[in-house]
């Protein structure tokens, strides 16, 4: 609606459509960037409060009402913190690493459809773009580990390589099974193919694929029980041991943004995205959009809640078992699942 309004306005004063479209993209970007920061600030608080609840504590409760401004205070603290890069660090790579880690997340935010009208980028190869961009961010970890000239960072970087390299493939295979079901690589089409309520979601035939997807995302995100690259009890901070101030904040920000966006991706691919589980919407017009946003975030936060729950429960997996677990169990299962799904698809609606 806003788009149409601005479009007619722009045509009225003779602005070339290319410039207008670019302007629109910039506007979308600004909106999404603000959205991302709000989401991350909320998510950090959400996680801390939940972990506190799991462990019978109160959690942050000093800043603002019951601690709701805690993460904002943290963000300001990180912003005005001195940025130190130690002796013998590779200064260029050291600065580049957080950039490389952070950039893809922002692009991912652009690639997601939020409702059937609210999206920034809608390309036919959406899924491939998402995969490419996700894989890119692990490069940042490797660079950070190498550039720091710190042994703990180096070990953390090495672990990050093995981990991201291993779990990339099951992730791709589980997404592929969705592509087979939907017959499309466009995220929006995949969502629309799941319309019609809970039983049309791809999670029903593809439950195994969903589990594989979830495990792989946890590994890609370096979250418990796969938080080996930054295992604080072994490697202190792993790749971000030497980072401070804004550069550390960027790692931190990107990590939580990734948690959100990959959970969102899981919802889009397996749980019908912005679709209501009842198959119908209660509102009309503009309210449908709000309703879709509500369902999307509700499902996403269910997945995030699950991730936090896992973090509160499980110990860390052993570093040599990590890759073995992937290559021996997860990957063969993912291949089998792909086979199963293609046969299922052939029988059901070939």
């Amino acid at each position, binding site marked *: 609606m806003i788009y149409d309004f601005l479009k007619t306005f722009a045509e009225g004063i003779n602005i070339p459509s*290319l410039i207008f*479209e*670019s302007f629109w*993209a910039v506007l*979308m*970007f600004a909106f999404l960037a603000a959205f991302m920061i709000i989401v991350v600030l909320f998510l950090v608080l959400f996680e801390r409060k939940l972990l506190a609840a799991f462990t019978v504590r109160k959690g942050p409760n000093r800043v603002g009402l019951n601690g709701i401004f805690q993460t904002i205070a943290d963000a300001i603290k990180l*912003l005005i913190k*001195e*940025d130190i890069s*130690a*002796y*013998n660090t590779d200064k260029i790579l050291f600065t580049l690493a957080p950039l490389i880690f*952070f*950039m*893809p997340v*922002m*692009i991912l935010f*652009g*690639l997601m459809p939020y409702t059937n009208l609210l999206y*920034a*980028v809608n*390309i*036919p190869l959406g899924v*491939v773009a998402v995969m490419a961009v996700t894989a890119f961010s692990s490069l940042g970890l490797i660079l950070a580990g190498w550039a*720091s*000239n*710190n*042994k*703990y960072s*180096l070990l953390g970087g*090495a672990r990050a*390589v093995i981990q991201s*390299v*291993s779990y990339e*493939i099951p992730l*791709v295979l589980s997404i*592929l099974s969705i*592509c087979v079901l939907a*017959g499309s*690589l466009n995220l929006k089409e995949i969502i629309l193919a799941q319309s019609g309520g809970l039983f049309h979601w791809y999670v029903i035939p593809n439950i195994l694929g969903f589990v594989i997807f979830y495990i792989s995302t946890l590994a890609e995100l370096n979250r418990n029980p796969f938080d080996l690259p930054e295992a604080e009890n072994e490697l*202190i901070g792993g790749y971000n*041991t*030497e980072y401070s*101030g*804004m*550069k550390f*904040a960027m790692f931190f920000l990107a990590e939580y943004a990734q948690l959100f966006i990959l959970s969102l991706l899981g919802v889009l691919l397996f749980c019908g995205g912005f679709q209501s589980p009842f198959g119908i919407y209660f509102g009309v017009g503009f309210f449908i959009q709000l309703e879709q946003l509500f369902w999307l975030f509700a499902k996403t936060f269910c997945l995030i809640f699950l991730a936090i729950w896992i973090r509160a429960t499980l110990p860390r997996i052993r570093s040599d078992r990590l*890759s*073995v677990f992937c*290559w*021996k169990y997860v*990957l*063969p299962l993912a*291949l089998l699942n792909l086979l199963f799904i*293609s*046969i299922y*698809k*052939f029988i059901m*609606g*070939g």
Partner: protein
Amino acid sequence: MNLTGYGILFIFVILSLLFAVAMLVTAYIVQPKYKREIKFQTYECGLNPNQSARIKFDVKCYIFAILFLLFDVETIFLFPWAVIYNKIGLFALLEGILFILVLGIGLFYAIKRKLLEWQ
């Protein structure tokens, strides 16, 4: 002329880079700068590092990288297959099964050769 989705994606890439750089620059302007010798020491549990971290170091991930390359390239081939799967039918199914079997045999071989064990 209209921007396609890819055009917007391109703008997003550039903008996200700018955004990230802007964050660093803002922090650089805002942050205090009290440079002290001791702050620039590499962290190694409170001691001076006894050697540089840039050594020829056996990280055991070479074999994983090779395997990753193989599998990732091969799964890329599956994307077009997935898209047109519906239109081709039985032939696509058989072809898919064959391809996945070949992948599976490769993986089985790698496991059997104990390429994935650390010690």
